[in-house]
C-alpha cells in the first residue's frame, strides 16, 4: 500500500502543488524584506484565481485570464500599500480585510456574473498551456517528473532565480532590503523607502495573482468558493521557514507542497491526512522558537564578550 501512496506521481503532484505556494511566497518574501508582513496573501490568491477564470472565459484565452488577474493583483497591491504605508494602518488589519473582501467579493461575483453557487466551470474556459520540453521525452524518471507541466510551474522556477538576482545582485534589491531593515539609512542615502515598499507590495499582488491563476486555470478549469484553501498562510509559513531567502523558501514551499500532496493521497487510501498537513504549521513555530533562542544566546555571548574586554 505504501507504493500506492509514495511513488513518482506523488512527486509530480508535489511539483504542481508547490507552484502556487512558490509564487505567493516569492511575493510575500519581497514585502517581508521591505518590512511588511502581508497576511492578506490568502485573499490576493483567491482574487487571482477568480479573475483568471473570468478573463479566460470571456476572452477565450488563458493569457487574458492571466493579464486580468495580474491587473487586479496590481490594484490590490496598491491598495494594501496605500493603507499600510501612506495611511499607516496596521498591516495585519488590512491583510485580514483583504482576505474578507476577497472571500465575499469572489462569491458575490460568482453569483452575479456566472449565476452559480459553490463552483463554476465551463468548457469555454481555456486552461494554461502545458509546456513540453522535447529533450526530456523518453528519459525515464525525469520525463514524468519534470515534463509537461503547466507553463506557470516553469515560470515559478525562473521567478525564483529572478527574485534572487533582484534581491542580492541589483541595487534595487539592496534598496528593498534596506527599506525593511533600516529605512532611515536608505533615506539619508537619498532613496525613498516608501517607493521600495510600494514596489514590493505591487509585486506581491502580481505574484499572488499568478498563484491564483495557476490554481484555477492550471489543471481543472474550475473556480470553487474559498479556493485558496489556506495556501496564503502556507506561503507565509514557507517564507518564515525559509527566512525570507528565495532559495530556502523554494525548498520550504516544495516541502509543504509535498505534505499537502501526500495528505491528499493518504486521504484516498483512508489514512488520516491531518497530521502530515499540520507539519508546515508546527514546523514554522519550531523554526521561530529555534531562531529566537539562538538570538538570545548570541546576545548573551556579546555581553559576555564585552565583559572579557574590560
Amino acid at each position, binding site marked *: 500500500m505504501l507504493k500506492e501512496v509514495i511513488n513518482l506521481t506523488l512527486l509530480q503532484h508535489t511539483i504542481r502543488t508547490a507552484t502556487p505556494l512558490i509564487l505567493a511566497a516569492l511575493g510575500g518574501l519581497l514585502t517581508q524584506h521591505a518590512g511588511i508582513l502581508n497576511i492578506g496573501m490568502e485573499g490576493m490568491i483567491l482574487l487571482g484565481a477568480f479573475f483568471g477564470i473570468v478573463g479566460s472565459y470571456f476572452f477565450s484565452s488563458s493569457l487574458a485570464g492571466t493579464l486580468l488577474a495580474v491587473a487586479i493583483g496590481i490594484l490590490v497591491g496598491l491598495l494594501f500599500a496605500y493603507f499600510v504605508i501612506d495611511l499607516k494602518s496596521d498591516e495585519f488589519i488590512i491583510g485580514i480585510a483583504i482576505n474578507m473582501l476577497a472571500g465575499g467579493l469572489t462569491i458575490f461575483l460568482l453569483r452575479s456574473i456566472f449565476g452559480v453557487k459553490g463552483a463554476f466551470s465551463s468548457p469555454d474556459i481555456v486552461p494554461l498551456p502545458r509546456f513540453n520540453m522535447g529533450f526530456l521525452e523518453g528519459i525515464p524518471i525525469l520525463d514524468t517528473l519534470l515534463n509537461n507541466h503547466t507553463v506557470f510551474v516553469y515560470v515559478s522556477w525562473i521567478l525564483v532565480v529572478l527574485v534572487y*538576482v533582484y534581491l542580492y*545582485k*541589483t*541595487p*534595487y534589491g*539592496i*534598496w528593498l*532590503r*534596506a527599506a525593511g*531593515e*533600516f529605512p*532611515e*539609512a*536608505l*533615506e*539619508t*542615502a*537619498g*532613496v525613498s523607502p516608501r517607493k521600495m515598499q510600494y514596489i514590493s507590495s505591487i509585486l506581491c499582488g502580481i505574484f499572488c495573482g499568478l498563484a491564483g491563476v495557476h490554481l484555477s486555470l492550471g489543471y481543472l478549469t474550475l473556480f470553487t468558493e474559498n479556493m485558496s484553501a489556506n495556501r496564503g498562510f502556507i506561503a507565509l509559513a514557507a517564507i518564515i521557514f525559509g527566512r525570507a531567502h528565495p532559495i530556502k523558501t523554494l525548498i520550504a514551499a516544495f516541502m509543504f507542497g509535498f505534505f499537502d500532496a501526500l495528505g491528499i493521497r493518504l486521504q484516498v487510501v483512508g489514512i488520516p491526512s491531518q497530521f502530515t498537513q499540520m507539519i508546515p504549521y508546527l514546523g514554522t513555530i519550531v523554526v521561530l522558537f529555534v531562531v529566537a533562542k539562538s538570538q538570545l544566546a548570541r546576545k548573551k555571548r*556579546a*555581553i559576555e564578550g*564585552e565583559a572579557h574586554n*574590560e
Partner: protein
Amino acid sequence: MAEKLIEMKNITKEFPGVVANDNVSIDIKEGEIHAIVGENGAGKSTLMKILYGLYKPDSGQIYFKGNPVEIKSPLDAIRLGIGMVHQHFMLVPSFTVAENIVLGVEPRRRRIFTDYNRAVKMTEELSEEYGLKVDPHARVESLSVGIQQRIEILKVLHKGADIIILDEPTAVLTPQETEELFRVIRRLVDKLGKTVIIITHKLQEVLALSDRVTVMRQGKMVGTLKTQDANEQILAEMMVGREVLFEELEKKDVAREEVLRVNNIKARDNRGLLALRGVSFSLHSGEILGIAGVEGNGQSELVEVLTGLRQVEEGTFTINGIEATNMDPLQIRELGVSHIPEDRLSRGLSVDATITENMIIGNHRKEPYAVRGIHLNRKKIRERTKRLIKEYDVRTPSQDIVAGNLSGGNMQKMIVAREFSFDSKILIVAQPTRGIDIGAIEFVHKEIIEKRNEGAAILLVSADLDEIFRLSDRIITLYEGQITGEFLNKEISKKEIGLYMTGKAKGLN
C-alpha cells in the same frame, strides 16, 4: 579671510510641544572646524538636520556660497556637498561595509546589476585616501562602534562631501577612538580642505579641536566665538546660564538619617557596556543629594538601578536597611521610593491616557482607590486627581483630557504631583525641569525643597548646574561611571565642579 560657505538665517522649527529652533542664525566659514554646543534639547541636532534636508524649517532661509537655496531632502544637501554623520549610525547591520558605503549610488554592471567588486575597490581606495582603515567585506553588525563611525565618514566622503556634519561623534567612542577621530578630522581639514561642523556637548573636545564655537540653549542662539577666545567656564555659563535670577529658597534644618546606601554598584547600559563602574554613596533624610555630570556618564543607569528598572552586574544597595538590589519597580515603590523619570514622554506618562489615568498609577491597587485592590472607586480617584491638579498647578481645562495634549511644563507638574503625593520618604528625581517653562521650573523647585524640609531624602540627577547648586545640600560628581568627587554645596563652586564633572580632577572628601 575665509568665505562664508553656509549661512542659516532666522531658522525656526517647531515640533508638537516644543520649539526646537527659535529664530536661529549661524554661519559656517570654508575650511574651518565649527563646533555647535549646547545641552540636550538645545536644538543643535535639529538645526543641522535642517541643513541636511531631513527637516524643513517652518521659517528662515539657507544660503550656500551667498546664494539662497532650498534643501528639501538629503539628496539636495548631498548635491551641495553637504554630508552628515549621525549620532545614531545609519548603517544597515546585515550589509557589508562596501554595500553600506555605496548605498544609493551603487556602481553598476550593465546598468542593472551591482558591480560589487568595484564597490569593494572603491572602498579600499577611499580607505587609503583618507587614512581610515576598514575591511570592505565585513558585516557592519560585527564591527565595533569606532569602526562603524569610520564607515559613516567614508560614506559621506564617497558622496563627495566637502562639508561634513558630525552629530555627537564622540558620544559612543572610547578615549582612544576619540583621539583617532580627532586625527582624522584634522587631516580632513588641513590636508584635504574640508569643512567640518561638529555638534557636541563635550567642552574639552570643542576647545581641543574647533576654530570657532557656537553656543545654543533651549532652541535659541546664544553666541558664536573664536575658540581661542573661549574656555570651559565661559562656554559652560553660556550653555546653562539663565537670565532670571532665582530667589533663594529657604532650607530648614532637618534630622539626617541614612535611608539609602549604595555599595560599589556596577551595571551595564543597553549596549552591554559598563555604565557604572563601582559607585558608592549614601543618602539621608532631609537632604538633597545632587548628582552632577554631563549626560551619558552613567546617571541614567544609576537611576534605573535604584528604581528597579535595571539589574546590577555587581554591588548592592539597601533602602532603610533592607536589601533592595535587583528588586522590581513595584517592590521598590513599596519600600517608599518615588521616581520622577528623566524622559517623561516615554516613561513618565502615557500620552494616550487621560490625566486621571496617568495620575493613579502606583496607587491603583491601594485603598481607598481600589477596594480590596480590585474594584476602582472612581469617585475617590477623580477627587484625588482634582485635588492634585489644583495643588500642583497643572493647567488643564479638565482631568479628562489626554495627557499628550498638555504642555511640557504641565506634563511635568502632573508627574511631580503624582510622585510627590505618595508621601514617599525617598524621592529619585531625574532632570526634573528639562524642557519646561520658567514658571513651572520655579514651582517644581519649590516643591522639591518643601519635601526636603518635611524630611524626605531626595536624589537629584541633573545636567543643569544651576539647578544642582540651587537645590542640593551635597553634590556628587559622576564621570564615566565613577564618582569623582563628593562635596558639600558651599564647599565647591560652579567653575571648579566642571573639572570634576569632566574627569579632570578626582577627589573624594
